[in-house]
């Protein structure tokens, strides 16, 4: 078990998706599907939806806050975000989503090396106090569907 610095408090659970390169959500993640859309990104084609997303660092446009907000609104956001380097931009999208009444997710800062004992794909739980731990797989192989508040 490891503990991260809480940027946005909350709890979330899902399969761990460790990105192998920094990402700009703007231009890099499709806000309608959660799919990694940047063809130059090594994880191109995978979806961040419902995952515990480990991002070494966020780069690029500050419009990435807006993409995070759209992911939350469309029900395709990660279940939690673990960031190697603290960044106000992604977290701010979550803060604004909370203001608008969207489901909130935890955002933690945690050194990526602290996650080395966890394999991508294992089920991980993030607690409100910043603890990150592997949990037994739920019966369902995929995280429960999330719905936008408009549905």
């Amino acid at each position, binding site marked *: 078990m490891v503990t991260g610095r809480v*940027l946005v408090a909350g709890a979330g659970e899902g399969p761990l998706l460790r990105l192998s390169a920094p990402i700009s959500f*703007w*231009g*890099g993640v499709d*806000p*309608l599907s959660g799919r990694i859309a*940047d*063809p*130059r990104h090594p994880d191109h084609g995978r979806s961040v939806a419902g995952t515990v997303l480990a991002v070494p660092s966020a*780069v*690029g*446009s*500050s*419009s*990435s*806050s*807006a*993409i995070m*907000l*759209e992911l*939350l*609104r*469309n029900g395709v956001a990660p279940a939690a975000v673990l960031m190697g380097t*603290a960044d*106000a*931009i992604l*977290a*701010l*999208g979550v*803060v*604004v*989503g909370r*203001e*608008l009444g*969207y489901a909130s997710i935890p955002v933690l800062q945690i050194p990526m090396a602290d996650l080395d004992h966890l394999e991508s794909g294992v089920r991980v739980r993030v607690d409100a106090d910043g603890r990150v731990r592997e949990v037994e797989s739920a019966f369902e192989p995929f995280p429960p569907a999330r719905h936008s508040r408009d549905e």
Partner: protein
Amino acid sequence: MRVDLTPHERAFLEGAHGEAAAMAMRVVVAAAELLGARRLVAIESAHVDGCLYHGDGGVEFAERLAAGGAKVAVPTTLNVGALDLLHPGTVRGDAHHGAMARRQMDAYLALGCAPTWTCAPYQAGHRPAFGTQVAWGESNAIAFANSVLGARTERYGDFLDACCAVTGRAPLHGLHMDENRVATVVVDASGVPEALKRADVFYPVLGTWLGLDVGQNVAALEGLPSDVTEDQLKALGAAAASSGAVALFHVVGVTPEAPTVGAATANNQNVRRITLTADKLRPALRRLSTTDADTVDAVAVGSPHFSLEEFAALVPLVRGTRLTVPFFACTGRDVLARLQATGEAAILASAGVSIVVDTCVVVTPILPAAGGVLMTCSGKFAHYGPANTGYEVVYGSLAECVASARTGRVSRDEALWSW
């Protein structure tokens, strides 16, 4: 960490200025906590980038502020939206996109922002004085405000920019503070040939290199011409912000915080020194083109938005000719009004130049849907074009862009880059 708030700031949180303004202050305080700021700083102006439509959540946020009666507390200009409001046929896209993009732009106007719709607000009359604290969005505008004007802003983006404008406050951190504005890297450009340093085509390449190699460290550039133009500095900052999130650079003898190297570095002798060579610049030049194709399907200039001076260079190049591929020049509506008054807009139109205002070709669908190869003299278009438009890009000078647009074949001479 707790943020120390003044009574005025706490009153915002307590709803003294309405629920929407309270929400704005909650967001500013949350950002301050995320950034580790101990208090907020009063700002004198804002430039808001959040008016560009990315999805319906952004519209909901802006309309929440507007419906709650929030108003900007400081003079605030607006960056581009996703529509050319003066030329409604310019932007392709479905009815939902058009309607929501319009609602988002309208909501920011309802907050009391000025309808500038430009990414070069500093060339549309918004020029904060040296040393003033501001909260600006749009990466090129941030770099310009910090570097060329000597105003002080961090990198603000969607939501936080508008919340700073409504509250008149920003988290006190980063480039708002003296100690973070000192150059830690000195770049010596004295070995670069004068002919190259006088050419506009040099600056987006220099900026791309700066972003890649120096990144968010603050650089002092030495050995650039003392009469380097404002548009060249604008191109340098825009490219550096695109390739490396650069928000501040100094040009010794030119920009206000760098009368001397010593002033820019606070007389620190232990700064990193880099000598600029052709070998360093060539990879940056290559990176600005993604194809060796020799045909061109469209040309776009004006990122950041073209200034009157840049149009003054374009007009003689196209006067009396007829371009054979679509040629887009993106600019602010105030610049368009001046071009119309002087008759230059008519010259550009008869040559086949489409003037795009209020938005630009990489943030919203404007380029022909067929795709292909886009030529540009903008480092920022070259950087964002492939991912955002699907076009391959070729970088060249303005004159080369026009020559290529005449024939549909890439016309480029890279002799300047060999020394």
